[in-house]
């Protein structure tokens, strides 16, 4: 009987008790980028070319899959893509990272033993997280539409509340720094969505 208790009190012990989860978020992503000076190209004019900057807000979709959960933190992979943009710009991202949870377990915990079953549902969770990924930016300048591949590092935080047995709402804000081949960008995000605990459990025991 102490074995399962060890699973949720020991932060590094994953076992086969924690459920994976998936979160679908919608929200606003605002990026502000500056083209790198070395890659600036301009038309052949009499005046010196100025550096390009772009600022855009995109209504985006974000899918987060937490595949490995421990008592207080989880590992995730996520994908972000644009849905609606006023100027046809776009922000695509694939990232991997870690979330650190407070005030509750990181995920749904279930344990079965000889017909008896215990489940621990995290009701209200706050979290902070960090991620690293590769993104693709499509941005507009005054006279051109361009794109760039960026390496993105982000920090984010939020909260999640469980309404049903397996689902809840999640809200997140974050900021990231992207360094690309041609650009340097800062991104702010505000997302809200639905979080669902899956039947499947941790990928690695």
């Amino acid at each position, binding site marked *: 009987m102490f074995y399962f208790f060890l699973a949720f009190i020991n932060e590094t012990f994953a076992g086969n008790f924690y459920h994976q989860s998936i979160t679908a978020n919608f929200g606003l992503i605002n990026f502000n980028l500056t083209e790198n000076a070395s890659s600036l190209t301009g038309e052949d004019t009499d005046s010196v070319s100025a550096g390009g900057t772009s600022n855009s807000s995109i209504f985006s979709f974000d899918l987060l899959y937490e595949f490995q959960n421990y008592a207080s933190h989880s590992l995730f992979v996520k994908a972000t893509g644009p849905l609606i943009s006023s100027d046809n710009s776009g922000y695509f991202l694939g990232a991997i990272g870690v979330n650190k949870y407070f005030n*509750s377990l990181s995920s749904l915990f279930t344990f079965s033993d000889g017909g*008896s079953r215990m489940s*621990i549902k995290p009701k209200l969770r706050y979290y902070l997280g960090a991620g690293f990924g590769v993104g693709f930016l499509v941005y507009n300048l005054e006279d051109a539409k361009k794109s760039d591949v960026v390496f993105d590092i982000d920090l984010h935080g939020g909260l999640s509340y469980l309404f049903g047995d397996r689902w809840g709402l999640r809200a997140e804000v974050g900021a990231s720094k992207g360094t690309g081949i041609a650009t340097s960008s800062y991104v702010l995000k505000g997302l809200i969505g639905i979080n669902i605990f899956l039947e499947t459990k941790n990928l690695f025991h």
Partner: protein
Amino acid sequence: MKNLILFLCLLLPVISKGNYLNINSNPSSSDVFVINPTTNKRVKIGRTPFEIQMQEVVTNFSESQVFLIEVVKEGYEDYRVMVGQIGSNEVNLSVNLSPVKTIIEQKQTDELMAQLFDIQRQIRTKDYSNAIDRLMSLDKKFPNYSIISELIGSAYYLDQKFKEALSYYRKAFSINPENKDAFIMKNYLEKKFNLTLEKDS
């Protein structure tokens, strides 16, 4: 963006609330106790199905963040599990109590007796073949009951298969040397056919 952050700040106090401990059991109406693992103080807190706020258990009963829950019912083995109050978590416990072993054995013996009575009725109606089949499967399930081997022997004897009958009477006697009927029939058949264990081999 500002409006979203403001909404989140307003939402926090609204949705924060106490955590519950829900306990169900099969069978229901089982007593629930809380035990402090350090002092071993044991307090009854209710009967299943049961719901209580975790903070109430910690403050009023266990006096510890980590405690044992014990579910008890007469005729069933006690069930114990360790639980801790860790943040905002709802704990649901569904306990399947196991009957104590003597009750299981009594039920099995009761089932065996009912089947043997039915098989005896079959033997009386001279349905020896089906009766023997049923007795063979009972013998696999209850190998330590000499009565089953004895009854197989009787069925073979009534069916005029004396060698098979003798082997089962011998088996019944070896399982339980105090089985007088098996002993008498074993000796009778051995004398009738002039058989002993040495002669058989």
